[in-house]
């Protein structure tokens, strides 16, 4: 039995603690917004936040998240239920095509903006290079991150 918080909710998961966080969350909680891409932390589709830090959940044992706060794409919206600025920007720039990688892209972008509120192209390239988009929407992701950065600055001061 592993105890942790998922999207703010205390949760007990009765699975082998070696199970990757990705599969524990997807199969035990029904939160399937986080995706399986490669299983070896090479594509970023499975990105979740553990205590605010982006991790590749396909390669993170559940035991490492014990007692910690796990946030998935389902938990990234604002407290009042409105979309996060990054999600809004994703819609504004019509970023997703197939959309499969986008949960991971968004989670990574949220973490980037938290650490670097006004990222340069180089910052974005560096931070986002671990997330593959097979539909090749990199141009739009870059633009959306900049829009989200502006919106966050205006809102958050």
């Amino acid at each position, binding site marked *: 039995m592993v105890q942790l918080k998922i999207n703010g909710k205390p949760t007990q998961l009765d699975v082998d603690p070696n199970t990757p966080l990705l599969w524990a969350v997807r199969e035990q909680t029904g*939160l*399937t917004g986080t995706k399986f891409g490669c299983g070896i932390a090479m594509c970023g589709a499975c990105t979740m936040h553990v205590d605010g830090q982006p991790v590749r959940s396909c390669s993170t044992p559940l035991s490492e998240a014990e007692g910690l706060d796990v946030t*998935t794409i389902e938990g990234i919206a604002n407290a009042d239920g409105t979309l996060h600025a990054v999600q809004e920007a994703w819609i504004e720039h019509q970023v997703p095509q197939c959309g499969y*990688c*986008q949960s991971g892209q968004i989670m990574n972008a949220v973490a980037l903006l938290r650490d670097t509120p006004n990222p340069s192209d180089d910052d974005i390239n560096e931070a986002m290079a671990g997330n593959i988009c097979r539909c090749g*929407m990199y141009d739009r992701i870059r633009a959306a991150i900049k829009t989200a950065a502006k919106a966050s600055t205006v809102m958050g001061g």
Partner: protein
Amino acid sequence: MADATEKKIKVKKEKEKGPRKGRWTRRGFIGAGLVAGGALVVGVAIRPGDRTDTLAEYVAGDGEHLLTAWVKISEDNTITAIIPHGEMGQGIHTALSAMLAEEMDADWDALDIIEAPAEKDYANFPLVREFATGGAKVPGFVFDTLNGAMLGLAKKMDMQITGGSTSVRFTGTGAMQTAGAATRELLMRAAAKDWDVSVDSLRTAKSMVYHDASNRSGTYGSFAAAASEMKPNLQPKLKSRKDYTLMGSPLPRVDIPAKVDGTADFGIDAKVDGMKYATVMASPVHGQTVARIDAKDAEAMPGVISVHNMGDYVGVVADGYWQAKQALDSLDVDFTTSDASSLSQEQLFAQYAESLDTGKRKTMHKAGNVAKGAEGAAKTIEAEYSVPFLAHACMEPMNATAWVRDGKADIWCGTQNPLGTRMAVAKAMELDAENVTLTTAFMGGGFGRRATPDYALQAAALSKVSGHPVKLIWSREETTQQDHYRPAVLGRFKASLDADGMPLTWESVFNHEGEPKEASDIVYAIPNKLVQVVDSPSHTRLGPWRSVDHTQHGYFTESFIEELAHAAGKDGYEYRRALLADKPRFIKVLDAAAKLGKWGEPLPEGQARGISIVESFMTIVAQVVTVDMSGGDPRVVHVACAADPGFAVNPDGFEAQMQSGIIYGLTAALYGEITLEGGAVAQSNFHDYEILRMDEAPKIDTIILTSDARLGGGGEPGTPPIAPAVANAVFNVTGKRIRKLPMRDLGLGAAS
């Protein structure tokens, strides 16, 4: 399905009245009727022609009552567009709905959109019609389906393909617009009758009919019942482009909101009560079977339910994916071997070379006489080009969920061919099609891969043998090694130039004949040409890959024409222009790309531009790329893309498709290579099958040109031009001609 039955009855009546025999009339029947719940349903039933023997054989049994598109209007004025194509990121639900709503004057903001079920009524009839009329270029996998080769569906039109950049071109114009216009006419006639006014005095807007003279208005829904009693106009008048309010405007995609908050359901997200998880390993050498399996250890592992020898693959069913995967990895399995089991990449290409030397040649395209044409040539140029196998590498690994029991089967999966998948499962499970349901989901990438139903068949088989509902998930490794690959191709090219450097002849021979046939043709005005193909059997599974044969031939042709320009001492852009002088659409696209890409303007040291132009799926695309070689390897800094699809239904969606096609093709050009070792695919995951990433992604500018041409495709035409444009740019910096893809490991750095 009640709706379908209703519809067939209605349309059969229509058929009795309509013209019977004879040539294809290029028009569809329109059926209208009231279904349970009081909703008016309108579909287009296309009459199959009999001009093509191949086609006639397959459509004969199915009569003339296939409905291809429906719009449903309920009395509360809810309008539902029913879209017979899968969404894999191309925005097709949005584009096709817009085509329907445009002609119908439906309220876009209140439109409901659903994906059609895997029913016969939604087979790709508009697509087949285009084929039958000879007016279109149909991609290879469609022929495969027609021939029954792919799915083994002889004499049935179980085809509901999303591929070949066909959805907008064929379903859109052939069905959605026609259905929309016919529906609007029906509703106006119903209103005119009710109000006792002339149809001409009415106007429509946002799902309402108006009679301004008497200040009356009514919802479409209020006339739905009356309209269902009327005979629809078989040839409704379509709007002219100048009157469009939706088509041609950038429309936010309807599938996007669910794709930013985690609620979009892909195949892998299917949830079925009592569901278990499975994963599989097929013979690494394709075509071989399990020779021996020792499952003792695996069966004893926690969470493992059962291990199965399925003939050509092994499967593990467990409580979770990870447990299934751990058990699979612990299995001791041997597969049978064959001559192919020792085949290396070098041997494969040596076989291709031998085929080109001695194999029987089939002529694909011919003009003039190359032997005579070459007499008196000032120069002869020869070159050999090659491309490797390519995997699709969809972000979502292959997966399907199945529950096979009690003489029925339910399937949940993302697929580019729902109906074909359903029929294939029925056949494999020896069930009647009526006892098989298929629920589609978003596809995490398709690119041609999800046109083949192998993963759904495995899920069904594992559900059957294990007795559980089973979600089968392939590992990334299995997804990479059990793909249906873009063929590896070797091509030889020869041309002769006159004293001015202009080509007199063009000859080529290559292995692998796929589709579409025109991919290997050349668009340039060269008086004598001979394009030939030889057979090259492969034990490796092949399949359609984004833009199909245009990927290899676009690269070959656009590289070799550049070699001719160079030999002639001419600029690549000007040389192409001269050879396209009689093709004004091409010239416009080429000029637009050159302008956008600042062709001829100075660049920093170590950078150069390259140009290319390819028509595929009736869309012409030219690209000018800027490549920086200062780091040793090619880095694409900028891509200028000009495209003429005739008309872009959703310009923002079309632009996104160009961007996507470019990155997809650029990944292949720089990195993409599947090789064989011991007959098996050597690559397994993203560390050795690399995908272009954010830090390597160029800035892309796109310009969309409009012309009078029929609608062209969007999903694929962005891909073919990028590889040759980059290769040509690399030559313009380094003087090294790239005749083999991918570009990495070619020692380019050493030359710069």
